[in-house]
């Protein structure tokens, strides 16, 4: 029961935080008065955060041991190439994830 309450609170918190970021431009920028600092952060914080999150996701890979990180490098390269070719986010993600799952689950070692 404690777990049910936790997940309900969790969903509400994440839902409200998401709504806040989506409503922010309509509240902050709807009139004039765009503060240059806000505009600067609005433009350059997201690219920095996206790279931080990417690094955060792969930080627990054992990069320097054995074949550590090879699967990740191959799959991420496929994501980059697919995205530069087709520029369809969902296609790039699904291709990369499919390949990564195949690599991790040893599909290719059968051949």
């Amino acid at each position, binding site marked *: 029961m404690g777990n049910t309450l936790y997940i309900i609170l969790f969903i509400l918190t994440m839902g409200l935080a*998401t709504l806040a970021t*989506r409503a922010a*431009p309509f509240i902050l920028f709807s009139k004039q008065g765009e503060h*240059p600092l806000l505009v600067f952060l609005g433009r350059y914080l997201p*690219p920095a955060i996206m790279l931080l*999150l990417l690094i955060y996701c792969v930080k*627990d890979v054992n990069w320097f041991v054995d074949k550590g990180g090879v699967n990740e490098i191959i799959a991420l390269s496929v994501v980059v190439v697919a995205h530069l070719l087709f520029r*369809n986010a969902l296609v790039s993600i699904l291709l990369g994830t499919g390949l*990564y799952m195949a690599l991790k689950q040893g599909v290719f070692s059968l051949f």
Partner: protein
Amino acid sequence: MTTSINSALKITLPVLFGYIPMGMAFGLLLADQGYAWYWATLMGVFIFAGAAQFMAVGLLAAHAGMFEVAMTTLLLNSRHIFYGLSLIHNLKAKGWRRFYVIFGLTDETYSLLTAHHASRSFTNPTNQNDNDEGQFQFIITALNQSYWVIGCTVGALLGSIITFDTTGLDFTLPALFMVLVIEQYKATKKVFPFAIALVCAVSTLVLFDSSSMLLISITLTLALLLGTQQLQTKGIMK
């Protein structure tokens, strides 16, 4: 009304093909953690954000506190703050429909709404009724969310019925961030935000333990970005 639903269906078709498998991947991951299928449905209904929901699987597993959940979500979705600028004057929906469209502004909904507005003003400038356009924006958002909720639910149901080897499925999250890094670079055409982030991430990982990486490296990044802005406004750095 029927014609606008038909044309909205046609426009949202690419999103359908993306949201169903992505939603299913999320549902499978959540079911894998032992959560009942309806939690995936509820998250699709009340959160409706791909990256945040994938992040949620990890946060739930770690039993993260609400402050951490809120901070992570705010930072994760901070990219929306700048996206929304292009829509401020083009969002025609009114009242509760307007609120719903803002609630449902995912990356994909944004790109459909902005692309559709641009093409409509070009091809049909006279027959541009704000009321119709608002109604149309509402339908697009609702269709997109229904695809996402169906995907989440089907994935979670599948995951609770059959055992599915989800090893590697969590790669959707780094793959998503890789795509967003490319998109952010194409939008800003600047290297310095990435350079700052890289330096901050690596030094945090070396100096501190990796579990507290996110908060420390984000604080460092924010400080360095503010410094850069000050240098730029003083004309010291271009």
